[in-house]
């Protein structure tokens, strides 16, 4: 068969067979009001030289800004060695090894990654990664449903403090599977999930409680009490966590008396650049007893006939190439290259380096909170412990403040209005280890000026 899909004659024959006069006629189904009549003109092709010049001109428009936006994607220092090593041909060009065991280097790296993630989460096992944080949470919910197979339908308690985009992804992926996602409102004073609110929920067919740590507001949830409550209802606990924060805070495997059952989240803070929002990767870890419900690839270490160490893909009966219809997931490609970067990043920093990074993020946030508290027109919204983000209420419209500060090359934070309109003029500000005391002073003084300026308009 030729690779050219259809000749003009083919198109004519097919239209004739359908009794259609033209290809355009096939789109008559779509109401005219919904159709875009004029696509912006697409220019003809450029030469490499012309294209390089165009891109250089566009790149020159980028300005270095001081970034205080977090909200799920975090700016961290990445040692130069990380992407230098990751960009080696052996890593960069390798697609999923279909003859996996022939690629011992790739498998060993994934094995090291799994070991690091499992220890960071204080859980028994990790898979070789998933697409992103949102899909890892969706897979965690599906795992919980399979584990509680005795429940006819499944109710998943999902705090409103979980990343709003993750909640959308979860809804999209699980909504056809007799899984009901029940949103848990947060306490407006503390910005976190309270046991009192959970107690009011129907406890029938309760399959899992999702616990974000830190939550979308940067607030630390009462993970021990929440875990204890969920386990007392015979529900599983899914921790959706910032992996860097886990170097400093109590990891999911140690929450409550028995630990969270599953941990998932976005791996980006570990060596993956912001890069306009992706590609990133998701991680997924669990207790040993749930390993057969864990989707995606898992690399194991073994010995060959002569006792030499080797790495293999293991527990493959969970995967779609063994039992397609009964696979734990059919959307679980791992993000090998980003995991490579993360693994190198974690090995360079080590547990101490990761902990120090997390600590400096937190100390910087505390310093900023202190400075902000002295500003007129700025009020922290929640009285809770924080990691490296804070929600503040501004006296002036958030949009105007953001626009004015952007003019001064400061990205001041994430506007919460779209997802949390009830909070009013609320701004989510993030500080990582990349900010100096001078950066914080500049930010606060600029914010002060902008607020004063807007007050006088």
């Amino acid at each position, binding site marked *: 068969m030729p690779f050219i899909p259809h000749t003009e004659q083919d198109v004519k024959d097919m239209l004739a067979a359908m009794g259609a006069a033209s290809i355009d006629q096939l789109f008559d189904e779509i109401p005219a009001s919904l159709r875009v009549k004029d696509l912006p003109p697409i220019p003809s092709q450029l030469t490499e030289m012309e294209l390089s010049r165009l891109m250089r001109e566009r790149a020159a428009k980028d300005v270095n800004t001081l970034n205080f936006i977090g909200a799920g994607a975090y700016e961290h220092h990445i040692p130069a060695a990380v992407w230098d090593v990751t960009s080696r041909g052996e890593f960069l060009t390798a697609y999923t090894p279909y003859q996996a065991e022939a690629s011992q280097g790739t498998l060993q790296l994934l094995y090291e990654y799994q070991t690091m993630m499992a220890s960071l989460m204080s859980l028994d096992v990790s898979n070789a990664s998933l697409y992103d944080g949102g899909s890892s949470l969706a897979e965690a919910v599906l795992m919980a449903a399979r584990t509680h197979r005795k429940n006819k339908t499944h109710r998943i308690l999902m705090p409103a403090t979980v990343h709003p985009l993750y909640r959308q992804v979860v809804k999209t992926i699980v909504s056809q599977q007799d899984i009901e996602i029940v949103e848990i409102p947060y306490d407006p004073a503390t910005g976190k999930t309270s046991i009192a609110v959970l107690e009011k929920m129907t406890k029938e067919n309760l399959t899992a409680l999702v616990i974000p740590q830190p939550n979308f507001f940067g607030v630390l949830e009462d993970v021990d009490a929440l875990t204890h409550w969920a386990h007392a209802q015979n529900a599983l606990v899914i921790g959706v966590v910032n992996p860097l924060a886990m170097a400093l805070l109590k990891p999911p495997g140690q929450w409550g008396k028995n630990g969270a059952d599953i941990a998932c989240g976005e791996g980006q803070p570990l060596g993956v650049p912001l890069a306009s929002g992706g590609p990133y990767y998701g991680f997924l870890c669990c207790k040993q007893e749930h390993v*057969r419900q864990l989707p995606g690839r898992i690399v194991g270490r073994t010995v060959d006939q002569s006792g030499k160490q080797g790495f293999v893909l293991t527990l493959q009966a969970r995967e779609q190439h*063994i039992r397609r219809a009964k696979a734990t997931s059919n959307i679980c490609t791992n993000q090998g290259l980003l995991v490579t970067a993360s693994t190198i990043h974690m090995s360079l920093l080590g547990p101490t380096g990761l902990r120090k990074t997390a600590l400096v993020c937190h100390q910087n946030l505390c310093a900023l909170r202190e400075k902000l508290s002295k500003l007129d027109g700025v009020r922290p919204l929640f009285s809770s412990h924080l990691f490296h983000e804070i929600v503040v209420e501004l006296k002036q419209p958030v949009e105007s403040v953001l626009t004015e500060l952007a003019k001064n090359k400061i990205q001041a934070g994430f506007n919460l209005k779209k997802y949390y309109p009830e909070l009013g003029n609320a701004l989510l500000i993030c500080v990582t280890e990349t900010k100096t005391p001078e950066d914080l002073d500049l930010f606060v003084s600029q914010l002060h000026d902008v607020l004063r300026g807007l007050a006088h308009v």
Partner: protein
Amino acid sequence: MMNSVPKTLKYSKTHEWVRQDDDVITVGITDHAQCMLGDLVYVELPDVEMSLELGQECAVVESVKAAADIYCPVPGEIVEVNESLFDNPQLVNEDPYGKGWLFRIRPFESDFHELLTADEYTRQVASEAH
């Protein structure tokens, strides 16, 4: 080498064997089935008190190279599962008609006419080989 097919047992087309003792029947997989699967690494069994219909998927046996569903050969209620398989799934390979049994059912009816005799099952295995 021929796989063993004890004359005292009944068989399903899907390679389960069935043995009746008083009012309870015991179910396992045949020597032929374990041989085709290879070394078992995991067995997933139904919950006790679960009611099963004829042909319902009720267990999974997993080897290093494949996973296979077990279909209920006789409608009834699960009264016991072989918990020793959780730690030692290879019992199915070593002793498929003995220590490697999977679960016990209290059947809803006494008539098992759907099942094959040892000779019929042997002929079926032989025909599948061609």
